[in-house]
């Protein structure tokens, strides 16, 4: 690990000042950042430990939703009574990720900011446009089993690896962000992560000096909530494909279909056209197939990950069948 200065701010304002200069990074649970510092993928000059700031609260909002503090651990969030009863999708997604040891340290803000597990990104001897802009992408025409099939660019085909944010995207949660001297701004989780384009080094819309203070979930809506994660082994593995779904039925027809997908893009993938297509339809295998056609019309495989295209189709159909009671 490269040497760094360690500092601990005494207030949120102080933290935004300290994290404003380049080469500084905020650390919360550290389960991803410390790992990347050991690999010298991340080499901050200054590490700002925000753990002692009071941002761990999980509290009801005035409009019936829930505000989850940036420093609430994944364990605390998944075990929270209202998350279990009103947002089981979020509890299930968190519990499907990592291990208990990691979830005990991992936080809301840190989980959102976790970096890709692309093998080229985490190996400093390999080319990677995300880690070292302009050095090339080793994954294109390389080992690409984990990689994206939607929203890729010629510069990067990495995936966002997490589960929590995929559930939050389906639930239409908002990320709360603050910076020194400015009002808190709100960014939908669906817009927080970016597509790689020609600047894959930027995972998300967070600017230098900005700190995530929390995430708000809107008031719960009616419908069945499902997180379906397909992975290489049944515990402690990243998603090959995951589907987060909030689906409601009224008089035999689909009346709500909020869907987000993990493991297939540089961000939790949300395609608003799916809800437009599905709502009003009587659920059937043919309807699910039409939704998959739309979702995957621009999908592109890179050899090793070609399987993700049919796998996404099947995972979507299985999730919708489960949610609507249709036998496939």
């Amino acid at each position, binding site marked *: 690990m490269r040497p760094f200065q360690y500092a601990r701010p005494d207030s949120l304002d102080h933290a935004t000042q300290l994290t404003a200069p380049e080469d500084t990074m905020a650390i919360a649970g550290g389960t991803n950042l410390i790992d990347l510092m*050991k690999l010298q993928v991340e080499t901050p000059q*200054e590490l700002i430990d925000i753990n002692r700031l009071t941002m761990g609260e999980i509290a009801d909002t005035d409009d019936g939703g829930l505000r989850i503090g940036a420093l609430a651990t994944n364990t605390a969030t998944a075990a929270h009574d209202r998350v279990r009863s009103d947002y089981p999708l979020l509890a299930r997604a968190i519990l499907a990720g990592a291990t208990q040891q990691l979830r005990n340290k991992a936080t809301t803000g840190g989980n959102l900011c976790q970096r890709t597990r692309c093998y080229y990104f985490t190996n400093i001897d390999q080319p990677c446009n995300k880690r070292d802009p302009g050095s090339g992408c080793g994954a294109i025409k390389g080992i690409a089993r984990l990689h994206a099939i939607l929203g890729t660019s010629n510069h990067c085909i990495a995936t966002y690896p997490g589960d929590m944010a995929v559930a939050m995207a389906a639930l239409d949660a908002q990320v709360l962000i603050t910076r020194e001297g400015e009002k808190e701004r709100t960014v939908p989780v669906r817009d927080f992560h970016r597509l790689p384009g020609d600047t894959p080094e930027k995972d998300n819309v967070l600017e230098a000096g900005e700190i995530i203070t929390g995430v708000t979930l809107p008031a719960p809506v009616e419908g069945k909530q499902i997180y379906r994660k397909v992975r290489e082994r049944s515990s402690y593995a990243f998603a090959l494909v995951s589907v987060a779904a909030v689906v409601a039925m009224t008089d035999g027809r689909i009346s709500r279909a909020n869907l987000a997908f993990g493991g297939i893009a540089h961000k939790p993938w949300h395609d608003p056209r799916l809800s437009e297509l599905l709502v009003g339809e009587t659920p059937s295998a043919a309807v699910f197939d039409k939704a998959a056609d739309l979702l995957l019309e621009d999908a592109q495989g890179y050899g090793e990950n070609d399987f993700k295209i049919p796998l996404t189709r099947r995972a979507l159909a299985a999730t919708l069948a489960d949610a609507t009671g249709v036998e496939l």
Partner: protein
Amino acid sequence: MMKLEFIVPITINNTAHPLPDDPRTSLLDFLRRDCGLTGTKKGCDHGQCGACTVIVNGQRINSCLSLAVMHDGDSVTTIEGLGTPDAPSPMQKAFLEHDGFQCGYCTPGQICSATAMLQEIANNMPSDASESLDGPIKPTPEEIRERMSGNLCRCGAYANIIAAISEVAEGDAA
């Protein structure tokens, strides 16, 4: 940039220790190198194997993925703090009785992890293997396997590890 003055020490197995000067020191290296507590093991050093699992303020964590300087005021329990050869903890005893190891390298992490894990079940915390998020949760082999997925055993002593943990879990429930 200020230099931090740590007024509050870290408490390890009920003994106070001053924190290290180099902020790069992981909690794992601090325990082993600075405190002489070599029961906690370094396997992968990347949070994948769980050999470094210790209990901090009642919660199990990977000590390799935490910096020692972040832990002033915290209370850490390592395998040395759970019991001794003369007075082993119930979990240590069960691992011995059930042969829950071969080479033993992952064992301190397994035992720390399992000890905290049974408390999580007692606190009704769900896992990915729980059918309902509302509980009650029973320490079935399926639950134990999922909850212990952060602790690898390359000798493959899993069957006996589960037998050991199950015995303690049944004792707790009785």
